Structures are given as structure tokens and as C-alpha cells.
């Protein structure tokens, strides 16, 4: 990373040292609570039903033979990365441009808007790595992990997060106020969280909705994390996921370079 972008990262980490306590609930405790309630609580019902030979579309078959806890944990890992990324790329970007104007302070120095984009996303990447690694440790303690290669789900979650962070940051830099963010969370983040395979296989959705689920970016993140965590990854599909998420990241970065520049240099 070029020196000016590294300075932006330095600034973000300095501020994070002040405010990290507030982020512990949203990005760490919350997914752990979901894992406990859904994975253990609801999971005991699901697994009992599967063991009892639950009907034609048997749950055991749908979960490809794993416990619900093991199925759910990598899904939560991916969707938590998305939520952390969305949180870090919306309100903090608005703060940098409108509320606190710290980005304006930066570009009055040798730092350029492109450095702000790169430094900010580098910070989001570090945050993603931190929360994903912490959550992964919890899933290990819950006994939800099947083998050592499951750790590959952590970098997969990082990529999933960046695939959201970059385009959302680009979008945030076009907004006058935070109203657009409410819509983004209500109609984007939350539906993706619920219907992209985090809690149940997309194959369980009505046939009409399934193609829709398969094009959502979170499904690619969830399936990538899950197949790596469970050791069921196939090369072709893994490449599709990586390409999809990598493209979203690249397009998002390119867009953010434009929108940040337009907003900061007028």
C-alpha cells in the first residue's frame, strides 16, 4: 500500500482504538447469540427431525448430512462479514464526508481521494479479518467445525465482506444524508441475511425464487464459506464464487474511486 493510503489506515485504527467497545455487540456478540439460539436451540429440533427420517425432502439430505450447527456456523460467518462491511461502509463514510469531515481534512494534505478509498477499505479488511477470526474461534468452541481446512472459511468471509464494502462505500459517497442507508439495510442487507442460504439451503425456497437467490452476492459468500468449512468445496463452483466476489470487489473499488473523488474534489 502506498504511503498516503497507509496514513489513512493509521487514522482509522487510531479512531477504532477509541470506539471499539461499541462495535463488539454488533459484530461479535450478535452472531454468537444467533449461533447459540439457532444452531443449538433450533438445531436440536432440526437434527431430531432429520434423524427421525423427516419426510420426502428429508432435512438430513438438505443439510447434506451435517448437523444444523455445522451447517449454520459458516453461513453466519459470511453474513456477519456482510453486515460488518455494510456498517463500516455507510455511516463512517458519511461521517468522513459530511458529519466530521475528516476526509476533507485528509485531502488538504498530500493525501488524495484515491488514498482515502484504499486506506478506508484496508481498514474495513482488517476489521473483517478480526471479527471473522473471532467468530471462527467461537464456532470451534461450539464444536461446529469439522476439520482443519475449515479455517479457509475466514479468508473467504473476508472476501465476502469486501465484495459488499467496496460498492457500498461507493454508494455512500453519493449520499447527502443517512436516509438512503435505512433503505439499504431494510431492503438489501436484512433480506439477504434471511434468504441467501444462511439459515436454510436455497433449494428450500419456492422454485420461482431460487434463481434470484443464486444471483445474490451473499449466497456466493455463504456457499463459499460453507463448502470450505465443511470440506465439500468443488473446484468449479469455488472458482465461480471467487470470480463473482472478486468482480464485485473490483467494480466497487473502481466506483468508489470515482464517487469519492467527485464528492471530495469539487
Amino acid at each position, binding site marked *: 500500500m502506498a*504511503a*498516503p493510503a497507509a*496514513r489513512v489506515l*493509521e*487514522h482509522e485504527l*487510531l*479512531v477504532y482504538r*477509541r*470506539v471499539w467497545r461499541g462495535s463488539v455487540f454488533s459484530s461479535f456478540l450478535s452472531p454468537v447469540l444467533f449461533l447459540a439460539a439457532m444452531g443449538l436451540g433450533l438445531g436440536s429440533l432440526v437434527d431430531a427431525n432429520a434423524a427421525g427420517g423427516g419426510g420426502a425432502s428429508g432435512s438430513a439430505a438438505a443439510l447434506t448430512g451435517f448437523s444444523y450447527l455445522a451447517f449454520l456456523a459458516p453461513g453466519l460467518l459470511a453474513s456477519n462479514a456482510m453486515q460488518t462491511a455494510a456498517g463500516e461502509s455507510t455511516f463512517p463514510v458519511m461521517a468522513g464526508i459530511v458529519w*466530521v*469531515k*475528516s476526509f*476533507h*481534512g*485528509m*485531502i*488538504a*494534505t*498530500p*493525501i*488524495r481521494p484515491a488514498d482515502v478509498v484504499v486506506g478506508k477499505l484496508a481498514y474495513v479488511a482488517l476489521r473483517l479479518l478480526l471479527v471473522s477470526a473471532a467468530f471462527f474461534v467461537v464456532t470451534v468452541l461450539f464444536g461446529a467445525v469439522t476439520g482443519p481446512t475449515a479455517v479457509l472459511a475466514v479468508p473467504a468471509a473476508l472476501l465476502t465482506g469486501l465484495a459488499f464494502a467496496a460498492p457500498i462505500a461507493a454508494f455512500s459517497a453519493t449520499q447527502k444524508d443517512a436516509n438512503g442507508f435505512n433503505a439499504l439495510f431494510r431492503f438489501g442487507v436484512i433480506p439477504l441475511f434471511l434468504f441467501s442460504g444462511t439459515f436454510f439451503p436455497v433449494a428450500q425456497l419456492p422454485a420461482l425464487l431460487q434463481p434470484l437467490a443464486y444471483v445474490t452476492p451473499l449466497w456466493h459468500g455463504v456457499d463459499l464459506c460453507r463448502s470450505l468449512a465443511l470440506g465439500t468445496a468443488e473446484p468449479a463452483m469455488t472458482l465461480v464464487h471467487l470470480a463473482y466476489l472478486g468482480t464485485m470487489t473490483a467494480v466497487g473499488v473502481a466506483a468508489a474511486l470515482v464517487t469519492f473523488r467527485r464528492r*471530495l*474534489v*469539487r
Partner: protein
Amino acid sequence: MAASPSGSLIHARALTKRFGGFTAVDAIDFDVAPGESFGFLGPNGAGKTSTMRMIACVSPVSAGTLRVLGMDPLADGPRIRARIGVVPQQDTLDMELTVRENLAIYGRYFDLPRPVIRQRVDELLDFVQLAERSGDRVEPLSGGMKRRLTIARSLVNEPDLLLLDEPTTGLDPQARHLLWDRLYRLKQRGVTLVLTTHYMDEAEQLCDRLVVMDKAQIVAEGSPRQLVERYSTREVLEMRFPVGVQETLDGQLDGLGDRVERLPDRVLVYTADGEAAGAEAYARGLRPEMTLVRRSSLEDVFLRLTGRSLVE
């Protein structure tokens, strides 16, 4: 020190800024010499901030020529910005960080080594009298303290040129005088200051030379004293009449001084001798509620040039 063709730190010819169809700065010419303290005086919306943003290399020039420290802002933005200090109209401080951290991280933006930053931060905290607050968060500080911190921050790279956009707007008189004192010290150290203001007293206090801007153009240029001599009289007689009376004075004010301005709340008579004009008014049977004789100021210059008051 790098020089433009004319040897000035800032060199502008036909400098223009457009936002879509709106022209914020309309083909202005000016030069700022090294060590000079130069001001843009004008009402809100005159184009002062747009001009400052172009000089600070955060706003592309729409047309015309601009050279800052002998360089082109378009090609050399980061190199120019490395050598200037900026005090923006609104503070951009990090509220969550401490006073010291705000200065230190800003020094990092200029890629200064940490030991250098440590030493400069101590000096700057003393200079702006914030040493006792160095470990405090910024948010609860008063407006004047935040402004002083912003000025300290703009000096962390030891700039050749300091840009101040309305440095004391919104501050109480005491805080303003403290700030003026600090800026005056910088000026004496040889730092080139460029500031915008809509306070004539600020311009009179700080500027060696200034331009008056109105509606995107420069309407006059000179030292505060030259401008007053050129566009106003030595003294001004101010008269305030009871409500309703001023409207009945048609004809009775003619010839009292070189020029008479009728503002909504008072009458200004421009003359070399205010006392004599006051006596003449009395002799004519005028009975103002209040009279005041004062020296002409830049406010009068502005009124003369634009027909409007500076602060409306």
C-alpha cells in the same frame, strides 16, 4: 522558495470557477508575494471560499491560470499541498481523538517522522495555548479552542503559505482577539497568510493588502488604508432618527457632506469634517436621536463599491 513568473507565491490570471451554469469566481486576477498577508473581503457568496479551495488544490480550476508556489495545482496537487497549511471554514477535527492525537495524526498525513511530530506538537500546543488540554478529547472544547487547534494543525508541516477561510467567524470577541494575536505572530515570523473574511475589523487587523470581492469578481484592491482613502472620506457622521422621521427627510440632507447614504436604520454622511456636518445638520433643523462621528472603515468602502452592507 519556488517562484512563479512574477516571483509571487500565488499567481492568478482570469481565474474562474463554475459549478454547472453557476459562475462562483469570474475571471479574477491577483498575486500574493512571499511574506505578505493578503485578504479576500466580501459578503457570503462572493466567491471567496471557491477561490481558496482552488488555491488549496481541492477544487479544479474551470478556466484561467493559477500557480501556487510556482506549481500547477492540476499537475502538482500533492506537492503543493505538502507545503501549505489550510484552516477551513468549518473545523474538520476528529472529535473522538484527543487534542494531541489530532495534531499527531495530521503530522503523519505529511509523512513526518514520529520524533519530529512529537517535538512540533509540543511547540504548537504551547503556541496556541492548549498545552493543558493536550490529553483531552476535542468534542467538549469551546469553539475558540477548536479553532486554535485547527490553526495549530495547519502549521504541523511548517507551511510556506497558510490559507485561512473565515478564521474567526462565530467566535466571541475575546476568542477572536486571541486568535488575531496568534496570527499576527505568525505574520511576524514571515509566514505568508491568505485569509477570507467578511469582518472589516479582521481585514484591518491582519491584512497588508486585500481585494474586495462581490458577485464573483474583484471590485477593488489595495491596503486597507489605501482603499479607505480612495473610496471613502476621512470621517463619517452617523445619524439615527426616530422611527418614521427618516422617510420625511427628502432634500434636507443634500450637500451635508461629499456623499450621503441612507441605510434602513440610519443616515451616513461622508465628509472630511464630521463635527462641522453635524453642526450644519442641526442648523438645518434636523434633530436626530443619536449622532456619532467616526473614522471611515472598510465597511464604508464596501458600501460605496457595492451599495450594500458587508454583514446583512
